[in-house]
């Protein structure tokens, strides 16, 4: 049976209200503090390293993000920090409406549930986008004033694209946190589940997946083909974690010389990827880099859509009454 009226009715109102709730909450203060401190630390650490290496690097600005030391790489920090922000904002989005007994009152206004859920998601994403943009600006601003070298357009475009990808990565975790807030009536349970999954996927899975592949597909031959195959298999398993996708994208985006997402693993084995007719180590144009990591980007966005849809379906079928 077809229902009448637009599912988007009230979307703007809900988004605006949720956004203003987020921005005026104590949680936002904590998030901003985290984000600014992280930004400053990253710049300080990486400046130390950049000063040691050459000043003739054409992508000096991007090095701020990539050369931030072994123990605290920018990519690693972001793979951990971004989910934390998203879960912090999302774990009580829907169940708090149940617990405050506001849900049935709001849904008795002339809007569909779609608008409520989507508005909450958009507001959460906008909040994270604001925080991450602030962080990005802190990093770039500090780096510019410290390095004193104007960035070129390509560098800025790559950095901006990285920001967009980071926001998409946050979308996956926000959708996940929101799914748990639909599934569990208790915010504490929802937060615990989301954090548990975050811990598993970000820290345990990279270790576990390697062993899993070795058990399932024991390494046998030592030919180049077999080596590449096993490398791809490892990568495929690792990519089940959104953090792995995000890391691959950012690595390629921030280093124009990257020609493959397997390059660093190959390098670790003392091998190099040589394409016929190309100069090893020469920078790729932005578009080429994007083409390499296009599937990963689609994967991230697709993942957040799938998670959101699951939450949406469950929410639509949920009873309003407590």
């Amino acid at each position, binding site marked *: *049976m077809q229902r009448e*009226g637009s599912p988007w009715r009230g979307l703007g109102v809900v988004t605006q209200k949720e956004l203003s*709730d987020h921005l005026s909450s104590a949680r936002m203060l904590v998030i901003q503090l985290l984000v600014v401190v992280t930004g400053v630390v990253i710049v300080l650490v990486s400046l130390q390293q950049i000063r040691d290496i050459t000043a003739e690097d054409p992508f000096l600005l991007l090095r701020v993000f990539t050369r931030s030391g072994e123990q605290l790489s920018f990519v690693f920090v972001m793979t951990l920090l971004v989910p934390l922000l998203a879960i912090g904002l999302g774990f009580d989005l829907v169940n708090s409406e149940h617990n405050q007994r506001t849900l*049935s009152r709001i849904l008795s206004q002339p*809007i569909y549930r779609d608008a409520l859920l989507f508005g909450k998601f958009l507001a959460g994403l906008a909040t994270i986008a604001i925080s991450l943009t602030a962080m990005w600006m802190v990093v770039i601003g500090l780096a510019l004033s410290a390095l004193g070298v104007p960035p070129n357009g390509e560098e800025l475009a790559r950095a901006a694209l990285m920001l967009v990808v980071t926001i998409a990565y946050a979308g996956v975790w926000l959708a996940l946190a929101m799914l748990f807030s639909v599934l569990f009536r208790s915010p504490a349970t929802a937060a615990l589940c989301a954090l548990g999954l975050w811990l598993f996927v970000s820290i345990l899975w990279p270790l576990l997946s390697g062993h899993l592949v070795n058990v399932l597909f024991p390494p046998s031959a030592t030919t180049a083909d077999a080596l590449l195959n096993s490398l791809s298999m490892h990568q495929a398993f690792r990519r089940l974690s959104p953090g792995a996708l995000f890391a691959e994208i950012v690595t390629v985006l921030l280093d124009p010389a990257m020609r493959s997402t397997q390059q660093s693993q190959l390098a670790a084995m003392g091998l190099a990827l040589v394409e016929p007719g190309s100069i090893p180590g020469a920078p790729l144009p932005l578009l080429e880099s994007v083409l390499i990591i296009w599937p990963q980007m689609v994967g991230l966005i697709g993942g957040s859509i799938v998670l959101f849809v699951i939450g949406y379906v469950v929410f639509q079928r949920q009873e309003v009454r407590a």
Partner: protein
Amino acid sequence: MSNLVIEAQNLTKRYDGVPVVKGISFSVAQGEIFGLLGPNGAGKTTTILMMLGLTEISDGRVRVLGYDPVREPLQVKRRVGYLPDAVGFYDHLTAAENLRYTGRLIGLRRDECESKMRTALDHVGLHDVTDRRVSTFSRGMRQRLGIAEILLKEAQIAILDEPTSGLDPQATIELLEIIRNLKNHNVSVLLSSHLLDRVQSVCDRVALFSQGNIALIGSVPELGRQVIGDSFDLDVEGEGSGLDAKLKAVPGVTLVETVGLNHWRLKTDRDVRADVAAAVVGSGGKLLRLSLEAPTLEAIYTRYFRNEREGSRHAA
């Protein structure tokens, strides 16, 4: 009753195959205060949620102001105000901010919303606390804020779920007064409650729920006649000799019970107050008290279910 605002026919709700509301039919006329009464878990709230399109209807149909809540929920929800059981507001926002949010969801213009909001808050007596956070509100104040929301919406129907539960007697009286006032605004009211006597005073008609069925429907006096029969209880106090026999002799009196000294309770098959007075005074006695006791909803309810139980026992 030509202008019905709510019509339900054979309305049924099953949760996992278990019927909770079992094919009920009722209608509410414009400007009427209609009570859905019954114990907790009898299916009142489920019925209400079906009327608002907030839960799926398993069977049957309902029309609210001519709209189908399944297919046109937005039309229904635009015109119907709903006060849920133990209504919640956003605690960190003030009363005004909560209502502003509702106003914007309804689609009111800002200036329109502000003036309507002020009138509504005045009406429910919350104008002093407009800018206080709802977290400081008592239960009664939240209920009144909920009514203010319905007024802001200029709803044609107000659906109130257990509006008086958990309120102290004073707050209950105030709230019932506000509900009565809704009728003056030409709002039809449908309210549910398990507190029979409180609600009896405001309802024009009631439906008594029992285990997902409507057991009885009608105005309170009608129900009294249906269930308790055409019997009236007369409470008589008087002084004089041989009044006992005199009272028994009045035509229409079926039973005279002696309650105390000079105090009787009569069962009669019609209103014979005038005859009783004449009999007492005519015999030279003093009439000290003569009152007709109308059956209360509670009496009707308990009597009905006692009859039901006895009926089923006989059948078994």
